[in-house]
């Protein structure tokens, strides 16, 4: 392949994975920013969104485009409802104590995983893409749907940003984030806000998953990877900072895609001992070290 | 006059725009009871936090017993003999009274541990409650336990941050007796709002206002100082 084609492919693949990652990680970041809860079950909400998308698409009659749009609406709602329920039944009772909530969300992770296995079975579940066309670039072909995913993610992120900054809901959420007690004093139903935020975070993961299933299929063990990547994104971007999260998602999504694409071009020994697995080890360590030495993230300001 | 045991020069700590401590010079003489007073928000707690190492100084210098301790972490200063009792009670609520004091005595390497701990408890009159869980003590007793932990450290400098807050009159008298018994082996630095306590105990007083030293001197001199009067009365 020509270097120009390689670059274009890397850019496209990087954008697809960054946009889906940004949506997923924003969900995690939102929950952490406002509720101070580290949701280990976030990857399972992603998985749940994906298997429900398959379920919707295979149950509903009609062309793939229609069932897909239906899934895009229905799945986040169901997943959000499950999350709100978990918040009210478990997290609220733990008073959002950080360590207890982590243990509880680990429990939730196992329950959701087992639930998906029991209900939907162990197979990879394919969902047809709502758009079926290929783009031929010099040297490689590319799925038109993947381009649509990038656009959809950008629109959704813009929508999220508008909700958070321009609406009363966003105002209430920010007020709750700053001070729970004061928000309560101003007549804000903090319990409802928390349940809503947790549902919204899970819903974002579910939307991201619905977008990705036509590319990747749904499977009950698929939650681990988005969880670890989202953690990395939220850490690099600065815990709780949405802008940092989006920037970090772009960075990590791009780097994650570009290493296997570019390394063989610039580094002939790639693949001999510098395998993708080694790249993953290094990436994981870098994220850990960022959290150790720059806990405010690469893009955040240190809090006084 | 006794030797200076602790000396601070140009000590500064700002929080954003707030000049909590702003270029304070301060001397503490061996064996005295020194009170630090000032209106709310004057920077008293920040100042002693800088001395004890709980907060790092932005500039300035602190020396203790002739040694520069400006960059020494808090726990190392404790080991040098600077003990600090918290403004808000900070005991180990889940542990027994004995364990609370033993932890302090153990830090000094006291031997035998049990005897050292019991001695500190008996000095504040809590020896009968040694097996009680500390969190179940009355508030006054918790404050006394806090002081006992300070004593069990066998400090050379004991910093007490508003120790009498919330104590009854009887408890305050007990407390005054304890503080008097500490000197002159050790030195005491006392942040206090209760002027009766200050006037009864302090040999020397420093007044802080807006992060700076407003005045320093003997109790009668401070009482007569017009600047202090205006700061306190807002005149």
């Amino acid at each position, binding site marked *: 392949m020509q270097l120009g084609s390689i670059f274009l492919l890397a850019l496209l693949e990087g954008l697809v994975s960054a946009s889906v990652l940004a949506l997923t990680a924003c969900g995690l970041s939102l929950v952490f920013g406002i509720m101070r809860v*580290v949701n280990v079950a976030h990857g399972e909400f992603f998985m749940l969104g994906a298997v429900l998308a398959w379920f919707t698409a295979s149950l509903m009659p009609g062309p793939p485009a229609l069932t897909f749009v239906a899934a895009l609406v229905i799945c986040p709602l169901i997943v959000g409802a499950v999350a709100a329920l978990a918040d009210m039944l*478990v997290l609220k*009772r*733990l008073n959002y104590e*950080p*360590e*207890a909530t*982590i*243990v*509880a969300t*680990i*429990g*939730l*992770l*196992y*329950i959701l*995983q*087992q*639930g998906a*296995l*029991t209900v939907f079975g162990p197979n990879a579940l394919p969902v047809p893409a709502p758009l079926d066309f290929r783009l031929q670039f010099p040297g490689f072909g590319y799925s038109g749907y993947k381009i649509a995913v990038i656009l959809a993610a950008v629109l959704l992120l813009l929508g999220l940003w508008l909700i958070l900054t321009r609406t009363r809901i966003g105002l209430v959420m920010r007020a709750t984030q700053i001070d729970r007690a004061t928000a309560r004093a101003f007549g804000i139903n903090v319990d409802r806000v928390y349940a809503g935020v947790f549902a919204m975070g899970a819903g974002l993961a579910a939307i991201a998953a619905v977008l990705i299933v036509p590319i990747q299929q749904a499977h009950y063990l698929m939650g681990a990877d988005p969880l*670890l990547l989202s*953690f990395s994104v939220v850490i690099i971007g600065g815990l709780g900072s949405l802008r940092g999260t989006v920037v970090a998602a772009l960075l990590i999504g791009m780097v994650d895609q570009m290493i296997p694409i570019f390394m063989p071009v610039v580094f002939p020994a790639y693949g001999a001992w510098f*395998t993708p*697995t*080694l790249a*993953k*080890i290094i990436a*994981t*360590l870098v*994220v*850990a*070290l960022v*959290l*150790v*030495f720059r*806990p405010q993230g690469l893009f955040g300001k240190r809090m006084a | 006059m006794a030797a200076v045991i602790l000396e601070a020069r140009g000590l500064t700590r700002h929080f954003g725009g707030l000049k909590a401590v702003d270029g304070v010079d301060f001397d503490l003489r061996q064996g005295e009871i020194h009170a630090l007073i000032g209106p709310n928000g004057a920077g008293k707690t920040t100042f002693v936090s800088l001395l004890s190492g*709980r907060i790092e100084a932005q500039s300035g210098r602190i020396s203790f017993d002739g040694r520069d301790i400006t960059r020494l*972490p*808090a*726990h*190392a200063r*404790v*080991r040098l003999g600077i003990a*600090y009792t*918290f403004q808000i009670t*900070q*005991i*180990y*609520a*889940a*542990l027994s009274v004995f364990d609370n004091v*033993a*932890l*302090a005595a153990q*830090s*000094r390497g006291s031997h035998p*541990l049990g005897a050292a701990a019991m001695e500190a408890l008996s000095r504040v009159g809590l020896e009968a409650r040694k097996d009680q869980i500390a969190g179940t003590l009355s508030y006054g007793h918790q404050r006394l336990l806090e002081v006992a*932990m300070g004593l069990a*450290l066998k400090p050379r400098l004991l910093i007490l941050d508003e120790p009498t807050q919330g104590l009854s009159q009887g408890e305050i008298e007990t407390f005054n007796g304890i503080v008097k018994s500490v000197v002159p082996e050790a030195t005491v630095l006392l942040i206090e709002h209760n002027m009766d306590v200050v006037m009864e105990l302090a040999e020397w007083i420093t007044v802080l206002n807006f992060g700076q030293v407003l005045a320093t001197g003997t109790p009668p001199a401070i009482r007569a100082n017009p600047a202090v009067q205006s700061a306190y009365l807002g005149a």
Partner: protein
Amino acid sequence: MIDRRALFLHLAVLAALLAALPMLAAYHVTNIAKIMVLAVYAMGYNIAFGYTGLLSLGHAMFFAAGLYAAGMGISLFGLSAAGALVLGPVAGGLAATLVGLLALRTAGVAFMIVTLMFAQAGYLTILYFVKYTRGDEGIVIARAARAIGSVDLSADTPRYLLAFGIFALALLLNLALVRSPFGRIMVAMRENEARSRMLGYNPYTVKLTALAVSGVYAGAAGAAYAVVFGYVGASLASVQYSILPLLYVLLGGAGTVLGPFLGALLMFYLIDYASSATSAYLFIVGAALILLVLFAPKGILGTLRERHARWLP
């Protein structure tokens, strides 16, 4: 300073485990041996989490350090089983110290994530060095190598006795540790770090020491696992093996000496019996975690200590 009742209780548990050996069916001999090895691991976890307040999600790395030190020591370098049992705790302690040096600069949630990330890197490292570790497939330790002198450790009784010996040693040392002055400092660090600092204790060194001891326990358990069960594989270094000791400790009672063993025993048999009735044992693990943090955050022995037996260490 060890309470007589406490010492008696622990010795009685050990005596019961020893006396049970001739009465147990073969299946349970292996199970209890495994439970004792896992309990050593959980005891180590408890020293960090239960006593010192360090909630780590990366202990699998310390367990795996001992596991692979022993397994690769035997299979690649011809180490003896006895040598492997010594090397394991050293490797576990070393791994914990290295991780601690960095991770202990953080606290709380950040500490959990950092340890999780380090353990994930450790897991991937095992996969990376597939030539030596055989990656996910793992290493089988030859039966001939699993012997001390002429005693074949793969036979039921010696296996049980070795696991028992390590468990007994770990339990008594744990008891001595938590009743020692240092044990009191660990608890002080858990209860109130700011206060402990102002009593002259350096939180960093105290926590690092506790984590290192915890790693030594985990490494010892890992080495024992390799020698006693003859298999060393990457799945034993996965996240799940970091959650397992947390689950055992929460169930049995964090900050109690016997809690980890009790938790391991109950959880092992709960899963074992449940798996014949249903394949949904992940559900059981998940539900147990949630119910424990919701309704019994102190675990069985922690609740017992609070209500009835204050002397329980």
